[in-house]
């Protein structure tokens, strides 16, 4: 496909993510089929040869993530994509990528779990995505788009963040985002002011040899390396938090939701406004680093916070930590591939307002 400036395309979230990766300079893609993200692979298999890149349909998710590891170590822009059970298999490699400080992008279009689960949209890989997922003290930067346009835009940012911090970046979408079609314009460009990858393996011509590793067998070395990693994570937390804040001024109840849940909650906000209910929303765009500061600030002035997720309740734990007791935190979630309807969420909000009234009556 040709991508002239301002040209609008009607694409699925999967296709838009794949094309954005190519436009962001990704030239090495390795993947193994799994629904609901197969369109990323098929798009890559068509487009990569056209741009002189590499596409390999790999024998396993493990091999895919380690091909990403190799291409990242060699200095290439590289990506893989999968869905929940496949991402579980890739976690070993993601830990190694974090341990070797290698930049790459991993897209997870989540489906229902645990186990083989189903192929419906879910948000039940939140813990795995933001708490490390693999072994060791590490973090992956996690970006959560809620529209096809944002899915494309965040792919550009993901590659730049990965290179900037030498860290794996995960895009956490879900089956709905991956499969639905929306208009998309590819406006973003690859950042040009990133430092050269002097650490990459290119053959030691005219310089001292480079070693890419995560093994520190000498006592004390590994702790020193971990402290260095943690320092990087604190820097990312200070610099890279992203969120969208809607109608939080004078809100009684603020919803915290990301991705597809946040998209549904936008409808809830519209309905609530019609009913003169004062409802706002904070939509984390980065799930790690998490927008704790803004959530904590908002918690000081609202009646309560409602976290909405397509899981049994995972992000709600980070919301509670952010709120730190400043107001009650409630949860509404559907799990196993269930998608909450705006009506269900509105009912939950009405319930919370009634609770407030009851409390007011009891204390007056």
């Amino acid at each position, binding site marked *: 496909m040709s991508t002239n400036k301002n040209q609008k395309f009607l694409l699925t979230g999967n296709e838009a993510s794949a094309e954005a990766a190519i436009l962001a300079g990704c030239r*090495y893609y*390795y993947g193994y089929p799994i629904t609901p993200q197969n369109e990323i692979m098929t798009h890559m298999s068509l487009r990569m040869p056209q741009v002189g890149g*590499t596409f*390999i349909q*790999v*024998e*396993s998710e*493990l*091999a*895919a993530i*380690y*091909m*990403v*590891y*190799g*291409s*990242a*170590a*060699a*200095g*290439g822009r*590289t990506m893989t994509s999968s869905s929940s059970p496949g991402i579980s298999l890739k976690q*070993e*490699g993601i830990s*190694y990528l974090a341990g*070797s400080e290698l930049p790459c992008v991993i897209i997870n279009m989540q489906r229902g779990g645990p186990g083989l689960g189903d192929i419906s949209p879910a948000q039940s890989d939140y813990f795995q995505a933001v708490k490390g997922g693999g072994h060791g003290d590490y973090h992956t930067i996690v970006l959560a788009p809620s529209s096809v346009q944002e899915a494309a835009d965040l792919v550009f940012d993901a590659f730049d963040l990965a290179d900037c911090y030498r860290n794996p970046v995960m895009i956490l979408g879900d089956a709905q985002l991956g499969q639905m079609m929306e208009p998309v314009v590819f406006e973003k460009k690859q950042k040009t002011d990133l430092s050269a990858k002097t650490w990459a*393996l*290119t*053959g*030691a*011509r*005219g310089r001292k*040899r*480079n*070693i*890419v*590793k*995560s*093994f520190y*067998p000498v006592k004390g070395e590994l702790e020193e390396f971990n402290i260095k990693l943690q320092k990087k994570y604190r820097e990312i937390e200070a610099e890279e938090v992203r969120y969208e804040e809607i109608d939080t001024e004078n809100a009684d109840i603020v919803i915290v939701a990301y991705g597809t849940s946040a998209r549904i909650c936008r409808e809830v906000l519209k309905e609530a406004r019609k009913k003169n209910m004062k409802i706002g929303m904070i939509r984390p765009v980065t799930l790690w680093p998490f927008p704790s500061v803004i959530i904590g600030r908002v918690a000081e002035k609202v009646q309560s916070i409602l976290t909405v997720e397509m899981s049994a309740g995972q992000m709600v734990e980070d919301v509670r930590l952010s709120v730190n007791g400043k107001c009650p935190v409630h949860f509404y979630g559907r799990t196993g591939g269930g998608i909450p309807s705006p009506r269900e969420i509105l009912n939950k909000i009405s319930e919370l307002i009634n609770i407030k009234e009851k409390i007011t009556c009891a204390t007056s």
Partner: protein
Amino acid sequence: MEAIYKKPETLIDTPTHYCPGCGHGIVQRLIAEIIDELDIREKTIGLAPVGCAVLAYNYLDIDMCEAAHGRPPAVATGIKRVHPDKIVFSYQGDGDLAAIGTAEIIHTANRGENITVIFVNNAVYGMTNGQMAPTTLLNQRTLTTPQGRDAGADGYPLRMCEILSIIDGTRFIARTSITSPKNINRTKKMIKKGFQTQIEKRGFSLIEVLSTCPVYWHMTPCESMKYIDEQMTRTFPLGIFKDWENENKDNN
């Protein structure tokens, strides 16, 4: 006086961490000699394995990368696709290549990746204290086969050269050993041929080197060498299993 035998430039002058009688030092020195002779030090990227040889980058003065257990062929693929004109080799043990990494080695070979694999087979897991390897001989005692490997319970020794040589994507497959100056010279010749196969962009090459682990074989270094010659080669015969040069001759 002209020195006729000296430390290869690619070999780093540092004390070894390998046990007395271990074969890794010999094989890694050969790799260093070959890299010098082919003048490819500045364009070679090596993959260190898990296990005792994880510190291979302490000895070879080239760009090197670690890979998790079994995954070096996948990592090597990722590197080679970025740098098709660099020389990429993986250095792997028997557990790495023939157990946890069986899928990776088979499929990398099947894709005909233009890389070279040096497979050091000492029939035991050394770093984890001597458990059974996929290549452990029948009746061989290890930490996890205390009565000796039993085919009924533990399966048979896996012959990787024989398996890989029937895969269409492979071009040069050989098995050698390090039990004598003659065998060491032959190992060097075979590894060099593996590198040349890659330099000439002919495709996938693998050289299996039968090597020693005196500590977990519970033998002296000399007994270990004898054990390879007298016992190991019965299960793992030395030889060239596939050679692109012969294929061309056949075609002609």
